[in-house]
Protein backbone atom coordinates (compact mmCIF):
# COMPACT_ATOMS: atom_id res chain seq x y z
CA UNK A 1 0.00 0.00 0.00
CA UNK A 2 1.35 3.42 -0.94
CA UNK A 3 2.62 5.50 1.97
CA UNK A 4 1.48 8.70 0.27
CA UNK A 5 -2.20 9.52 -0.14
CA UNK A 6 -3.36 12.59 -2.00
CA UNK A 7 -6.90 13.53 -1.03
CA UNK A 8 -8.33 15.70 -3.80
CA UNK A 9 -10.35 16.15 -6.92
CA UNK A 10 -8.82 16.17 -10.43
CA UNK A 11 -10.88 19.25 -11.33
CA UNK A 12 -9.44 21.28 -8.42
CA UNK A 13 -6.44 23.38 -9.49
CA UNK A 14 -4.77 22.96 -6.11
CA UNK A 15 -5.18 19.16 -6.31
CA UNK A 16 -3.66 19.20 -9.81
CA UNK A 17 -0.75 21.23 -8.43
CA UNK A 18 0.11 18.44 -5.98
CA UNK A 19 -0.53 15.62 -8.48
CA UNK A 20 1.90 17.25 -10.92
CA UNK A 21 4.58 17.14 -8.21
CA UNK A 22 3.84 13.54 -7.25
CA UNK A 23 4.14 12.49 -10.91
CA UNK A 24 7.35 14.54 -11.45
CA UNK A 25 8.90 12.81 -8.42
CA UNK A 26 7.64 9.38 -9.59
CA UNK A 27 6.36 8.52 -6.13
CA UNK A 28 4.02 5.62 -5.43
CA UNK A 29 0.81 7.13 -4.22
CA UNK A 30 -2.89 6.60 -3.81
CA UNK A 31 -5.28 9.23 -5.08
CA UNK A 32 -8.29 9.48 -2.80
CA UNK A 33 -11.19 11.16 -4.58
CA UNK A 34 -13.01 13.81 -2.55
CA UNK A 35 -16.53 14.42 -3.83
CA UNK A 36 -16.92 18.19 -3.70
CA UNK A 37 -20.42 18.07 -5.14
CA UNK A 38 -21.49 15.94 -2.17
CA UNK A 39 -19.77 18.39 0.19
CA UNK A 40 -17.31 15.76 1.34
CA UNK A 41 -14.62 18.40 1.92
CA UNK A 42 -16.75 20.03 4.63
CA UNK A 43 -17.35 16.81 6.53
CA UNK A 44 -15.60 15.64 9.69
CA UNK A 45 -13.28 13.11 8.04
CA UNK A 46 -11.80 15.59 5.59
CA UNK A 47 -11.73 18.40 8.17
CA UNK A 48 -9.47 16.17 10.27
CA UNK A 49 -6.99 16.39 7.36
CA UNK A 50 -7.54 20.08 6.52
CA UNK A 51 -9.41 22.07 9.17
CA UNK A 52 -10.16 24.76 6.54
CA UNK A 53 -12.08 22.23 4.41
CA UNK A 54 -10.14 22.90 1.21
CA UNK A 55 -8.55 20.54 -1.29
CA UNK A 56 -6.06 18.94 -1.36
CA UNK A 57 -4.67 17.20 1.70
CA UNK A 58 -1.70 14.84 1.93
CA UNK A 59 -1.04 11.88 4.16
CA UNK A 60 2.49 10.45 4.29
CA UNK A 61 2.50 7.80 7.01
CA UNK A 62 1.47 9.68 10.15
CA UNK A 63 2.16 13.09 8.62
CA UNK A 64 -0.84 15.16 7.54
CA UNK A 65 -0.35 18.30 5.47
CA UNK A 66 -2.52 20.75 3.56
CA UNK A 67 -1.96 23.91 1.40
CA UNK A 68 -0.80 22.67 -2.04
CA UNK A 69 2.39 24.76 -2.24
CA UNK A 70 3.51 23.69 1.25
CA UNK A 71 2.76 20.06 0.33
CA UNK A 72 4.85 20.41 -2.82
CA UNK A 73 7.81 21.90 -0.96
CA UNK A 74 7.66 19.02 1.51
CA UNK A 75 7.60 16.41 -1.28
CA UNK A 76 10.46 18.16 -3.10
CA UNK A 77 12.61 18.06 0.08
CA UNK A 78 11.65 14.68 1.53
CA UNK A 79 11.97 12.91 -1.83
CA UNK A 80 14.90 14.98 -3.09
CA UNK A 81 16.64 11.90 -4.50
CA UNK A 82 13.67 10.73 -6.57
CA UNK A 83 12.47 11.85 -9.99
CA UNK A 84 12.86 15.48 -11.10
CA UNK A 85 14.75 17.96 -8.93
CA UNK A 86 12.08 20.56 -8.17
CA UNK A 87 14.05 22.84 -5.84
CA UNK A 88 17.69 23.90 -5.55
CA UNK A 89 19.87 22.68 -2.68
CA UNK A 90 22.04 25.81 -2.86
CA UNK A 91 20.55 28.48 -0.56
CA UNK A 92 21.12 31.42 -2.87
CA UNK A 93 19.72 29.69 -5.94
CA UNK A 94 16.78 28.50 -3.85
CA UNK A 95 16.21 32.10 -2.70
CA UNK A 96 15.60 33.22 -6.30
CA UNK A 97 13.28 30.27 -6.90
CA UNK A 98 11.48 31.18 -3.68
CA UNK A 99 10.91 34.74 -4.95
CA UNK A 100 9.22 33.46 -8.12
CA UNK A 101 7.19 30.90 -6.14
CA UNK A 102 5.84 33.83 -4.14
CA UNK A 103 5.20 35.78 -7.37
CA UNK A 104 3.07 32.88 -8.62
CA UNK A 105 1.11 32.76 -5.37
CA UNK A 106 0.74 36.52 -4.79
CA UNK A 107 0.76 38.21 -8.23
CA UNK A 108 -0.27 35.59 -10.77
CA UNK A 109 -2.67 33.17 -9.05
CA UNK A 110 -5.28 35.63 -7.68
CA UNK A 111 -5.73 37.16 -11.12
CA UNK A 112 -5.50 33.88 -13.08
CA UNK A 113 -7.98 32.19 -10.74
CA UNK A 114 -10.54 34.99 -11.14
CA UNK A 115 -10.25 34.73 -14.93
CA UNK A 116 -10.45 30.93 -14.83
CA UNK A 117 -13.57 31.14 -12.68
CA UNK A 118 -15.30 33.70 -14.97
CA UNK A 119 -14.32 32.23 -18.33
CA UNK A 120 -13.86 28.49 -17.79
CA UNK A 121 -15.83 27.37 -14.72
CA UNK A 122 -18.92 29.61 -14.66
CA UNK A 123 -20.00 28.60 -18.19
CA UNK A 124 -19.77 24.93 -17.17
CA UNK A 125 -22.07 25.64 -14.25
CA UNK A 126 -24.53 27.56 -16.42
CA UNK A 127 -23.61 30.89 -14.76
CA UNK A 128 -23.00 34.10 -16.70
CA UNK A 129 -19.55 35.68 -17.01
CA UNK A 130 -19.00 39.12 -15.47
CA UNK A 131 -17.33 40.99 -18.34
CA UNK A 132 -16.21 43.88 -16.11
CA UNK A 133 -14.30 41.46 -13.87
CA UNK A 134 -12.77 39.81 -16.94
CA UNK A 135 -11.64 43.14 -18.40
CA UNK A 136 -10.13 44.29 -15.10
CA UNK A 137 -8.24 41.05 -14.54
CA UNK A 138 -7.06 40.68 -18.13
CA UNK A 139 -5.39 44.11 -17.72
CA UNK A 140 -3.77 42.95 -14.46
CA UNK A 141 -2.62 39.66 -16.00
CA UNK A 142 -1.11 41.53 -18.96
CA UNK A 143 1.06 43.54 -16.53
CA UNK A 144 2.15 40.38 -14.70
CA UNK A 145 3.01 38.69 -17.99
CA UNK A 146 5.06 41.71 -19.08
CA UNK A 147 7.26 41.10 -16.03
CA UNK A 148 7.39 37.37 -16.86
CA UNK A 149 8.44 38.23 -20.44
CA UNK A 150 11.42 40.26 -19.14
CA UNK A 151 12.33 37.58 -16.62
CA UNK A 152 12.19 34.77 -19.18
CA UNK A 153 14.37 36.76 -21.56
CA UNK A 154 17.14 36.34 -18.95
CA UNK A 155 16.32 32.91 -17.60
CA UNK A 156 15.03 29.74 -19.23
CA UNK A 157 12.65 29.05 -16.34
CA UNK A 158 11.24 31.45 -13.76
CA UNK A 159 13.38 30.23 -10.86
CA UNK A 160 16.57 29.82 -12.91
CA UNK A 161 17.93 27.50 -15.59
CA UNK A 162 16.04 24.44 -14.42
CA UNK A 163 12.34 23.62 -14.19
CA UNK A 164 11.29 23.97 -10.54
CA UNK A 165 8.18 24.39 -8.43
CA UNK A 166 8.25 28.08 -9.45
CA UNK A 167 7.15 26.94 -12.94
CA UNK A 168 5.09 23.88 -11.95
CA UNK A 169 2.76 25.85 -9.67
CA UNK A 170 1.39 27.71 -12.72
CA UNK A 171 0.29 24.61 -14.62
CA UNK A 172 -3.26 24.08 -13.29
CA UNK A 173 -4.52 27.63 -13.90
CA UNK A 174 -2.63 27.82 -17.22
CA UNK A 175 -4.55 24.77 -18.31
CA UNK A 176 -7.93 26.43 -17.66
CA UNK A 177 -6.91 29.77 -19.17
CA UNK A 178 -5.67 28.20 -22.38
CA UNK A 179 -9.20 27.10 -23.18
CA UNK A 180 -10.33 30.75 -23.10
CA UNK A 181 -9.76 34.11 -24.81
CA UNK A 182 -6.97 34.80 -22.28
CA UNK A 183 -4.65 32.47 -24.24
CA UNK A 184 -3.78 35.39 -26.53
CA UNK A 185 -2.04 37.23 -23.65
CA UNK A 186 0.43 34.35 -23.41
CA UNK A 187 0.78 33.74 -27.18
CA UNK A 188 1.62 37.38 -27.88
CA UNK A 189 4.70 37.32 -25.61
CA UNK A 190 7.46 35.25 -27.27
CA UNK A 191 9.44 34.16 -24.19
CA UNK A 192 6.30 33.47 -22.17
CA UNK A 193 4.91 31.49 -25.10
CA UNK A 194 8.01 29.30 -25.36
CA UNK A 195 8.02 28.74 -21.59
CA UNK A 196 4.35 27.71 -21.55
CA UNK A 197 4.84 25.30 -24.45
CA UNK A 198 7.82 23.78 -22.64
CA UNK A 199 6.25 23.22 -19.22
CA UNK A 200 2.84 22.06 -20.47
CA UNK A 201 4.49 19.36 -22.61
CA UNK A 202 6.13 17.66 -19.62
CA UNK A 203 5.14 13.98 -19.38
CA UNK A 204 4.22 14.30 -15.69
CA UNK A 205 1.76 17.09 -16.51
CA UNK A 206 0.24 15.06 -19.32
CA UNK A 207 -0.41 12.29 -16.77
CA UNK A 208 -2.36 14.77 -14.60
CA UNK A 209 -4.47 15.76 -17.62
CA UNK A 210 -5.09 12.10 -18.45
CA UNK A 211 -6.37 11.53 -14.92
CA UNK A 212 -8.62 14.57 -15.23
CA UNK A 213 -10.12 13.41 -18.50
CA UNK A 214 -11.02 10.06 -16.93
CA UNK A 215 -13.39 11.85 -14.49
Amino acid sequence: MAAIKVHGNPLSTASMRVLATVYEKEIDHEFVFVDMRAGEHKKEHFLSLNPFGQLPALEDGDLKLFESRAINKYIACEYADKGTQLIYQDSKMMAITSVWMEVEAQQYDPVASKLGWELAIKPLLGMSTDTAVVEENEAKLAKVLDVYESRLAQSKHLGGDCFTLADLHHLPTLHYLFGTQVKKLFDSRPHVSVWVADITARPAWLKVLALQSQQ
Partner: protein
Amino acid sequence: MAIRKLYGTLGSPDTIRALASIFEHELDFEFIPIDLNAGEHKTESFLSLSPFGLVPVYQDDGLTLFESRAIMRFITHYYLKPGTELVYEVPKLQGIAATWIDVEDHQFSPPAEKLRQELVDKAKKGLPMDKEVVAEAEAKLIKVLDVYEERLTHSKYLGGDRFTSADLTHLPYLYHLMGTPVKQLFEERPNVSTWCKDILSRPCWSRVVEMVEKDKV
Protein backbone atom coordinates in the same frame (compact mmCIF):
# COMPACT_ATOMS: atom_id res chain seq x y z
CA MET B 1 28.99 50.03 3.06
CA ALA B 2 26.42 47.60 4.46
CA ILE B 3 26.37 44.21 2.80
CA ARG B 4 22.72 43.90 3.71
CA LYS B 5 20.11 46.43 2.67
CA LEU B 6 16.37 46.49 3.19
CA TYR B 7 14.33 48.88 1.05
CA GLY B 8 10.87 49.31 2.51
CA THR B 9 8.06 51.28 4.06
CA LEU B 10 7.59 51.04 7.81
CA GLY B 11 3.79 51.20 7.62
CA SER B 12 3.69 48.13 5.35
CA PRO B 13 3.05 44.71 6.94
CA ASP B 14 5.32 43.10 4.33
CA THR B 15 8.22 45.36 5.28
CA ILE B 16 7.61 44.59 8.95
CA ARG B 17 7.71 40.84 8.18
CA ALA B 18 11.18 41.23 6.64
CA LEU B 19 12.34 43.38 9.57
CA ALA B 20 11.14 40.74 12.05
CA SER B 21 13.25 38.10 10.25
CA ILE B 22 16.29 40.37 10.14
CA PHE B 23 16.07 41.29 13.85
CA GLU B 24 15.42 37.67 14.92
CA HIS B 25 18.69 36.71 13.26
CA GLU B 26 20.50 39.78 14.66
CA LEU B 27 21.78 40.85 11.26
CA ASP B 28 23.45 44.18 10.60
CA PHE B 29 21.72 46.02 7.79
CA GLU B 30 20.95 49.41 6.30
CA PHE B 31 17.30 50.47 6.01
CA ILE B 32 16.44 52.53 2.95
CA PRO B 33 12.95 54.04 3.17
CA ILE B 34 10.83 54.02 0.01
CA ASP B 35 8.21 56.76 -0.23
CA LEU B 36 5.14 55.09 -1.74
CA ASN B 37 3.11 58.32 -1.65
CA ALA B 38 5.75 60.00 -3.84
CA GLY B 39 5.65 57.03 -6.24
CA GLU B 40 9.22 56.03 -5.49
CA HIS B 41 8.30 52.36 -6.02
CA LYS B 42 7.40 53.11 -9.65
CA THR B 43 10.75 54.66 -10.61
CA GLU B 44 12.93 52.80 -13.08
CA SER B 45 15.71 52.31 -10.55
CA PHE B 46 13.37 50.69 -8.03
CA LEU B 47 11.67 48.57 -10.69
CA SER B 48 15.08 47.22 -11.67
CA LEU B 49 15.24 45.74 -8.15
CA SER B 50 11.57 44.80 -7.78
CA PRO B 51 9.83 44.45 -11.17
CA PHE B 52 6.31 44.53 -9.68
CA GLY B 53 7.16 47.72 -7.74
CA LEU B 54 6.73 45.90 -4.42
CA VAL B 55 8.28 46.67 -1.07
CA PRO B 56 10.29 45.32 0.61
CA VAL B 57 13.44 44.50 -1.33
CA TYR B 58 16.33 42.75 0.42
CA GLN B 59 19.91 42.72 -0.81
CA ASP B 60 22.48 40.42 0.69
CA ASP B 61 25.86 39.39 -0.67
CA GLY B 62 25.02 39.75 -4.36
CA LEU B 63 21.40 38.60 -4.06
CA THR B 64 18.42 40.88 -4.65
CA LEU B 65 15.12 39.48 -3.37
CA PHE B 66 11.56 40.77 -3.22
CA GLU B 67 8.30 39.25 -1.79
CA SER B 68 8.52 39.36 2.03
CA ARG B 69 7.84 35.64 2.53
CA ALA B 70 10.67 34.73 0.13
CA ILE B 71 12.95 37.11 2.05
CA MET B 72 11.83 35.50 5.33
CA ARG B 73 12.45 32.00 3.95
CA PHE B 74 15.94 32.92 2.67
CA ILE B 75 17.01 34.50 5.97
CA THR B 76 15.68 31.66 8.13
CA HIS B 77 17.48 29.00 6.05
CA TYR B 78 20.71 30.92 5.36
CA TYR B 79 21.31 32.32 8.83
CA LEU B 80 20.46 29.28 10.93
CA LYS B 81 21.06 30.12 14.59
CA PRO B 82 22.15 26.86 16.22
CA GLY B 83 19.70 26.00 18.99
CA THR B 84 17.15 28.63 18.01
CA GLU B 85 16.47 27.92 14.35
CA LEU B 86 13.26 29.31 12.93
CA VAL B 87 13.00 26.29 10.64
CA TYR B 88 13.20 22.53 11.14
CA GLU B 89 15.92 20.57 9.35
CA VAL B 90 13.76 17.45 9.20
CA PRO B 91 11.48 17.69 6.13
CA LYS B 92 8.48 16.13 7.91
CA LEU B 93 8.62 18.75 10.67
CA GLN B 94 9.34 21.63 8.30
CA GLY B 95 6.41 20.44 6.14
CA ILE B 96 4.08 21.22 9.03
CA ALA B 97 5.64 24.63 9.66
CA ALA B 98 5.44 25.43 5.92
CA THR B 99 1.74 24.55 5.93
CA TRP B 100 1.05 27.12 8.66
CA ILE B 101 3.14 29.77 6.86
CA ASP B 102 0.74 29.30 3.94
CA VAL B 103 -2.28 29.34 6.27
CA GLU B 104 -1.23 32.83 7.41
CA ASP B 105 -0.91 33.82 3.76
CA HIS B 106 -4.19 32.42 2.43
CA GLN B 107 -6.55 32.30 5.45
CA PHE B 108 -5.38 34.83 8.05
CA SER B 109 -3.96 37.69 5.95
CA PRO B 110 -6.94 38.40 3.67
CA PRO B 111 -9.42 39.30 6.45
CA ALA B 112 -6.59 40.81 8.54
CA GLU B 113 -5.59 43.11 5.67
CA LYS B 114 -9.21 44.23 5.16
CA LEU B 115 -9.48 45.04 8.88
CA ARG B 116 -6.15 46.87 8.81
CA GLN B 117 -7.34 49.03 5.91
CA GLU B 118 -10.70 49.79 7.53
CA LEU B 119 -9.66 50.22 11.16
CA VAL B 120 -6.06 51.49 10.95
CA ASP B 121 -5.48 53.10 7.53
CA LYS B 122 -8.82 54.86 7.23
CA ALA B 123 -8.59 56.09 10.84
CA LYS B 124 -5.20 57.65 10.04
CA LYS B 125 -6.72 59.46 7.06
CA GLY B 126 -9.80 60.51 9.01
CA LEU B 127 -12.09 58.45 6.77
CA PRO B 128 -15.11 56.50 8.04
CA MET B 129 -14.89 52.71 8.04
CA ASP B 130 -17.24 50.52 6.01
CA LYS B 131 -19.15 48.61 8.72
CA GLU B 132 -20.25 45.86 6.35
CA VAL B 133 -16.70 45.15 5.19
CA VAL B 134 -15.53 45.10 8.81
CA ALA B 135 -18.33 42.71 9.87
CA GLU B 136 -17.60 40.35 6.97
CA ALA B 137 -13.84 40.35 7.63
CA GLU B 138 -14.37 39.80 11.36
CA ALA B 139 -16.63 36.82 10.64
CA LYS B 140 -13.91 35.29 8.43
CA LEU B 141 -11.20 36.00 11.02
CA ILE B 142 -13.29 34.35 13.74
CA LYS B 143 -13.43 31.11 11.72
CA VAL B 144 -9.67 31.20 11.23
CA LEU B 145 -9.02 31.88 14.92
CA ASP B 146 -11.28 28.98 15.89
CA VAL B 147 -9.01 26.70 13.84
CA TYR B 148 -5.94 28.29 15.48
CA GLU B 149 -7.46 27.74 18.95
CA GLU B 150 -7.85 24.04 18.17
CA ARG B 151 -4.38 23.78 16.62
CA LEU B 152 -2.76 25.43 19.65
CA THR B 153 -4.37 22.82 21.90
CA HIS B 154 -2.01 20.27 20.34
CA SER B 155 1.03 22.43 19.75
CA LYS B 156 2.72 25.25 21.67
CA TYR B 157 3.38 27.16 18.46
CA LEU B 158 1.60 27.00 15.11
CA GLY B 159 4.44 25.25 13.31
CA GLY B 160 5.39 22.85 16.10
CA ASP B 161 6.96 22.81 19.55
CA ARG B 162 9.14 25.88 18.98
CA PHE B 163 8.83 29.41 17.59
CA THR B 164 9.34 29.32 13.81
CA SER B 165 8.61 31.41 10.74
CA ALA B 166 5.04 30.06 10.92
CA ASP B 167 4.56 32.26 14.01
CA LEU B 168 6.85 35.14 12.97
CA THR B 169 4.92 35.63 9.74
CA HIS B 170 1.83 36.61 11.82
CA LEU B 171 3.57 39.40 13.74
CA PRO B 172 2.90 42.25 11.26
CA TYR B 173 -0.88 41.86 11.30
CA LEU B 174 -0.98 41.11 15.02
CA TYR B 175 0.89 44.38 15.53
CA HIS B 176 -1.74 46.34 13.59
CA LEU B 177 -4.85 44.55 14.88
CA MET B 178 -3.95 44.55 18.57
CA GLY B 179 -4.38 48.33 18.50
CA THR B 180 -8.03 47.96 17.39
CA PRO B 181 -11.26 46.48 18.87
CA VAL B 182 -10.43 43.27 16.94
CA LYS B 183 -7.99 42.58 19.80
CA GLN B 184 -10.92 41.05 21.65
CA LEU B 185 -11.21 38.18 19.16
CA PHE B 186 -7.67 37.08 20.08
CA GLU B 187 -8.07 37.66 23.83
CA GLU B 188 -11.26 35.66 24.20
CA ARG B 189 -9.59 32.47 22.88
CA PRO B 190 -7.29 31.17 25.66
CA ASN B 191 -4.73 29.29 23.52
CA VAL B 192 -4.61 32.02 20.87
CA SER B 193 -4.28 34.64 23.62
CA THR B 194 -1.34 32.83 25.26
CA TRP B 195 0.35 32.35 21.89
CA CYS B 196 -0.08 36.03 20.94
CA LYS B 197 1.32 37.27 24.26
CA ASP B 198 4.26 34.91 23.90
CA ILE B 199 5.33 35.88 20.39
CA LEU B 200 4.61 39.59 20.82
CA SER B 201 6.87 39.70 23.88
CA ARG B 202 9.96 38.42 22.06
CA PRO B 203 12.86 40.87 22.59
CA CYS B 204 13.73 40.94 18.87
CA TRP B 205 10.15 41.91 18.08
CA SER B 206 10.29 44.85 20.52
CA ARG B 207 13.19 46.22 18.48
CA VAL B 208 11.06 46.08 15.33
CA VAL B 209 8.22 47.89 17.11
CA GLU B 210 10.66 50.52 18.39
CA MET B 211 11.88 51.16 14.86
CA VAL B 212 8.34 51.39 13.43
CA GLU B 213 7.05 53.62 16.26
CA LYS B 214 10.02 56.03 15.96
CA ASP B 215 9.12 56.59 12.34
CA LYS B 216 5.57 57.62 13.27
CA VAL B 217 6.81 60.50 15.45
